[in-house]
């Protein structure tokens, strides 16, 4: 079971992946200098882990809900592509019987961030839980 804990920088988000707590969380800004180096290992890890638990989910051995929290302030267009790749993996989990919840956080008044979340939700055909936060 792989635990991921990447600290936030000015240009890259904090990422926590804690399978024991059924939690994936991404928070902060995302415009990494080398976007592929940042996201590829993360995506590989997620794919590998979820492929390994699909069997259990299909056989109802684990019915816990996996929470995916996106608490992003800003991300550039290249990061958007990778976030969409992560969401496709998440949707694939759902399609294979893993119970999931996608929580999309946005700051009060930040209609664009909410809209981007709505677009992602529509894109993967899975409803998001939108949470407005006041700063």
């Amino acid at each position, binding site marked *: 079971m792989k635990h991921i804990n990447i600290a936030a920088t000015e240009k890259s988000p904090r990422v926590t992946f804690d399978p024991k707590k059924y939690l994936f969380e991404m928070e902060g800004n995302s*415009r990494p200098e080398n*976007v592929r180096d940042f996201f590829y290992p993360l995506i590989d890890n997620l794919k590998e882990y979820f492929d390994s638990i699909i069997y259990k989910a299909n056989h109802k051995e684990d019915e816990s809900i996996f929470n995916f929290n996106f608490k992003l302030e800003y991300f550039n267009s290249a990061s*958007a*592509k990778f976030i*969409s790749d992560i969401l496709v993996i998440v949707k694939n989990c759902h399609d294979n019987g893993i119970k999931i919840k996608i929580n999309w956080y946005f700051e009060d*008044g*930040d*209609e664009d961030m909410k809209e981007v979340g709505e*677009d992602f939700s529509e894109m993967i055909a899975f409803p998001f839980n939108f949470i407005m936060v006041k700063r």
Partner: protein
Amino acid sequence: MKSYDVIINHKGNIDLAVIDSILLRLKNYIQDKQLDIVTRKRLYTLAVECLDNIYKHADNLEFHQDMFVEFPPRFIIEKIGEDYMIHTGNVIFEKNKEKITNKINKINSHDQNEINKLYKRALMHAEISDKGGAGLGLIVMARSTGQKIKYDFEKINDKFFYFAMQLTLKK
């Protein structure tokens, strides 16, 4: 008469350190002026995408120092009344002129609703280039401004053009 202010005026090399320094100056401006959240994020988004484009797509001028001096990369943000104007400029190879023209013309032919659809489609099918770009920058610019992208090419010689772009972020 409308008020006029130059927020950023950069002419010269654009590398990662320069991008960081420009974005920091922009962040300070945004905080000082206490812009509303939508304007502040759109302005920042446009700056990041424009600077990324210049950095990733400006054709290599290593062997053309004279041209670099005469036609330096350019990134300018002005405030005219309540609107922001962003001007960018960089040298491109003649062979890329048609590709850029077609891409912008295609985006400009769509209304906002269609641009949103185009963005979603592009997101699904985008591939990350060796330079780390997803090819989504221009669509994001059109989405963030809700305006047509203005552009022009100035011929430098048979091999090179100077590509100038102008974006308007209206209040």
